[in-house]
């Protein structure tokens, strides 16, 4: 079950309680994941005046990476509007987990740009320095997705991948938009 953090709901939330609930449900993206294993964990955006920070939290680094990928899509559009119709495979290799995280986000940015796609489902496996992922999405449809902004690339600003005191993993960085 995907769940947007309170921070995101608070950031994007306004209007009536029903509005907030509706928005929260939309942000959760559960309707868009039929047939695709939903990632466990949470995602959020954090404040950066010019750009946007993405953050994923999960039981493992892979789960945190999956959640951060969802946060990446949410910069562009509402992930719940993106149908998981086509699968794309992504591989990255990097011994440093933080550099691997930036590589992962940049691989998604690249596939979005070159294949004119948006992604909403993510399945990541990390084995040593190797990341293998299958991601699901569909071609951009401006009228339906209403994409707000394209992502240029992930940066090393506010970059961190670490285990938290409760044992969960967090992965975050600023992306340039």
């Amino acid at each position, binding site marked *: 079950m995907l769940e947007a953090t309170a921070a995101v709901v608070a950031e*994007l939330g306004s209007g009536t309680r029903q509005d907030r609930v509706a928005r929260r449900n939309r942000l959760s993206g559960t309707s868009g994941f039929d047939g695709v294993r939903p990632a466990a964990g949470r995602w959020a955006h954090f404040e950066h005046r010019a750009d946007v920070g993405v953050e994923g939290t999960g039981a493992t680094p892979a789960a945190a990476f999956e959640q951060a990928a969802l946060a990446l899509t949410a910069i562009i559009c509402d992930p719940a509007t993106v149908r998981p119709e086509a699968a794309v495979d992504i591989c990255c290799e990097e011994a440093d987990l933080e550099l691997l995280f930036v590589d992962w986000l940049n691989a998604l940015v690249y596939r979005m740009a070159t294949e004119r796609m948006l992604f909403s489902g993510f399945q990541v496996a990390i084995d040593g320095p190797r990341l293998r992922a299958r991601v699901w999405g569909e071609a*951009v449809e401006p*009228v339906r997705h209403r994409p707000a*902004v394209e992502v240029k690339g992930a940066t090393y600003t506010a*970059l961190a991948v670490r285990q938290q005191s409760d044992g969960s993993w967090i992965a975050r960085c600023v992306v340039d*938009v």
Partner: protein
Amino acid sequence: MSDGLNQSGESPIGDSVLDTTQLKKGLVRQDDTEWRIEPKGAMRVPVVLFASEALVEDLDDKVLEQAVHVAGLPGIVGASYAMPDAHWGYGFPIGGVAAFDAEQGGVVSGGGVGFDISCGVRTLHTGLDRAAVDAVQDELADALYYRIPVGVGSTGAIRLDRRGMDAMLSGGAAWAVNQGYGRPEDLARIEEQGCVAGADPGQVSDLAKKRQQNEMGTLGSGNHYLEVQLVTDVYDAATAAAFDLDVGAVMVSIHCGSRGLGHQIGTEYLKRMAVAAGRYGIQLPDRELACAPIDSDLGRAYLGAMRAGINCALANRQILTHLAREVFAEFFETDLTLLYDVSHNTCKLEEHTVDGRRRRLHVHRKGATRAFGPGHPDLPTDLRAVGQPVLIGGTMGTASYILVGTEQGMQRAFASACHGAGRAMSRHAATRRWHGRAVQNELAERGIAVRSPSPRGLAEEAPGAYKDVSEVVLVAERAGLARRVARLEPLVCVKG
């Protein structure tokens, strides 16, 4: 060879994390608009910030931290400068200017240029007045929106094969003119005459070239735009006359950059520099400061690729100009002529006088505009006596400005000025406060026709999300960086 940012590994002021509040308190005011942090710890040069008291108060805390880090990079000359519109970037602040001497172990930094290599503004004369545009305002807005590929997922009409791509990356706007997009006389009014030397397409990866394949002649999204603008004020009649600017004249401005190719070059070299820094003896306080000695294989490779990125941006703005000309030709019997084209995300090799000595320096301008003063040999002959037009973009609901480079500015910050308003709040904060359709309707009531594929994008780009551009350019003028010539307001805005 580089001697490293800080061989001891300590951060420039001695702690692993800079206290940004203390940094702001440590600013020492020099005069009306200049503030300094004197060198301390690993800083090799001071930080110099150009700002009013109000802009300092509103300054993003991270700007000074980033400027201090830049002040510790090897081979930096003079000072680490922050322009009046400075805000938190990655590595370098946006609105940051820093010059490096290759002979002193100076570095080149991908973060000092940015992902959108050679993002910039070009402004064209239309020869029209407001009444002519008012008569067809909505139709003109629709036609521009229809013709200019804009927003996420949009593609251009041009497909380049491998040879064509390399020719574009070597030739810039000159290549575009040869392909029939625009006229040879356009080139004189573009920095580097439309084609920067030293571009090396061989240093641009196949991935970057593939990412650009469908993006030639696209505007992009975010803060990029094509605007039809009205000249509302002239501050300097003589220079305005030299720039052919009159109150009531209608102009067209295009703000965009090197599209996917530049983004991919930035992404790839940022990583290569971060990984290789240790090999070059550079210890970085933060990976985001990734850089390489200018005089190294990686430094040379980046410069070759980055210059190819500049040429891509120049070609892109040239193609967009052609599309705008086609649209205007459908409505009016007029021609669009180029006032000037500036890039505000670059690293350029320039000659500057430092302590009475001429030196060849690699000047990084990230979110800062080159502002050559009168007499500079790189200016077109018909503008050389007055100085370079400095084009400052505003928001879709506020003003843009045209400034001119000054003699004083040549000495102030390596001939650099601000580049725009700079964001005052995050995109999320903007979407909390505004709704896209309401923004569009309010602007329509004020006589500004806005077209965009994304209501949320409009909310994120709401005029109130930016600093007061008028304050920014006024401070730039008071600081002697550049002088105001004219103020423009939007009539039509096509937004990504």
